[in-house]
């Protein structure tokens, strides 16, 4: 494997030294471009109390291309599909090389606090979120309890 770019080394160091509150991101022992991420469900959201596992991978041309991020823990959210893929503009066309792993994870945390059913990835979830929000939130809480609280 090619030597790790200075930028990735620096970002990793800073993530370790000054972690983002509610988020832990640890590089894999064998692959420094692969991060094990845990995001704490934000307070006052249906995901509160849950610990959500994600994987984050920095592609070869990072930071010219966005990191690839996916939820591993099942989650009931209009912008996250069954495979854990996330609908977030900065992971697609709004990516800028000046953004960082830190900013990406903060945006994902914000997405948990403020789901956006008008830009859905999981259509059935988004539909329910729009026509019956209280039932959707009940589902999200139930999924959080069932899948994100065991360990």
């Amino acid at each position, binding site marked *: 494997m090619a030597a790790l770019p200075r930028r990735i080394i620096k970002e990793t160091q800073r993530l370790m030294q000054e972690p983002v509150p509610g988020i832990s991101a640890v590089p894999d022992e064998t692959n420094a471009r692969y991060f094990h991420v845990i995001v704490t469900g934000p307070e006052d959201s249906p995901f509160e109390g849950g610990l959500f596992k994600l994987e984050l991978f920095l592609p070869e041309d990072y930071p*010219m291309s966005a990191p690839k991020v996916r939820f591993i823990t099942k989650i009931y959210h209009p912008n996250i599909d069954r495979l854990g893929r996330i609908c977030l503009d900065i992971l697609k066309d709004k990516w*800028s090389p000046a953004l960082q792993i830190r900013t990406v994870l903060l945006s994902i945390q914000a997405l948990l606090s403020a789901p956006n059913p008008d830009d859905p990835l999981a259509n059935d979830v988004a539909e329910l979120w729009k026509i019956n929000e209280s039932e959707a939130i009940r589902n999200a809480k139930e999924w959080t309890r069932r899948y994100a609280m065991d360990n």
Partner: protein
Amino acid sequence: MSGMECNSDMECSDSDCGDANYEDYYSNQIWDSVPDNDIDSNQQLRELEITAFDCLRVEDVERLLNENVELLSSNLKITPSLAKLFLYENKWSLQDILMKYKDDTLKITTDVTMNSLKFTDISCNDHLTELNCLVCFSLLSLEKFNALNCGHFFCKDCWCIHFETQIAQGISTGISCMAKDCTNLAPEDFVLSNVTKPALRERYQLFVFRDYVKSHPQLRFCPGPNCQVIIRSKELKAKRVICSICKTEFCFRCGMDYHAPTDCNTIKKWLTKCADDSETANYISAHTKDCPKCHICIEKNGGCNHMQCYNCKHEFCWMCLGDWKTHGSEYYECSRYKENPNIAHESVHAQAREALKKYLHYYERWENHSKSLKLEEQTLEEIKLRIHKKVMDASGTWIDWQHLFEAASLLARCRYTLQYTYPYAYYMESGSRKELFEYQQAQLEAEIENLSWKIERAETTDRGDLENQMDIAEKRRITLLKDFLNV
């Protein structure tokens, strides 16, 4: 109907034939020859369907664009590259740009200096001899940095990698600044001054040119396979243009096959529907049907829909299997779809069935005329062979038979328009306008089948009779287009 046998190789082969005029007779384009004897319809045609256009080569277009670029760059005293970017962003309208310039809404910041750089997030030392690049996190001396006119500085290495990554993804004119939320586009000279790999530079220049042409309201790439021609027309209308090199004909506005009287959006909707429903429609693509009278199996090998059973001589319509005697009159109803007036009160299932029936009615006719066009092309080839033989046998000259080729190309033109009346009718609201449309469509259809019938029996048809039929068919076509074509 079978073509005559050829007696010797020499007479059959096109290429061995030394007669230069012979080739000319063969290269009839369906839209080329409007009968000379009808100046009136000629002019009406031009207004309705044809637009003035030029076929340009890449070099011509480059010169054309550069003239505009130079004009703007000397006018506003900006680099040609920035001028190009403004022209691209404003659809090549000098007027719009100069107006924005007056209103001061044009983003012109020439000479970005280190003084104007954005300090947000940049940790730098007191004397500003070194900067921290926000992308690679390297501390580098100032001359290693560069910025667009938005003042977001990054190191040149990062710009280079950024551009290379974007170009590799096929992005060219759309490459923007690397800063977060900055939508400022990178002009050509800035990109090229940072990209060194020859293959990527070439790719970039190719893509940029493609984007310039696509953004230009007067320019269209010829959609013909591997054709380099760019067509220029001053009016962006749904009119017919023909590439002078590859002979592809298309609608200037949308780039698809010419589609009068249907408009660009409707034809797109129709073609998408046909592609989506191709499974359902497949079963009707049969080449054989049974004679409605003696039930013998009949194969359709000509374009004409006026059929005559070879067994019982019964004459019938291929589309609806009705007696031909009832066709061609005032009561010709074959092209019209009779909607169930009470459908709104029927069950959902009945409505779905009705919708499918309606679609298939139009699709079947659309598809059938498209097939007839191809079959009539074959018929024309057979006629050419037979006429070639006649000329060689000294029974008449090429001039004597010229009217037949004109008839065949006129038939193709009329049937082509007829084919495109079906998507138009499918999407029409019912009412008196649709009734008028369907009446004219039926009239056109009847005259086309008469013409096709006469051409198939060309050698026994009286020339005056044929020319009369040509005239009527074209008049019907023009009438329909005049009343319903909206470009």
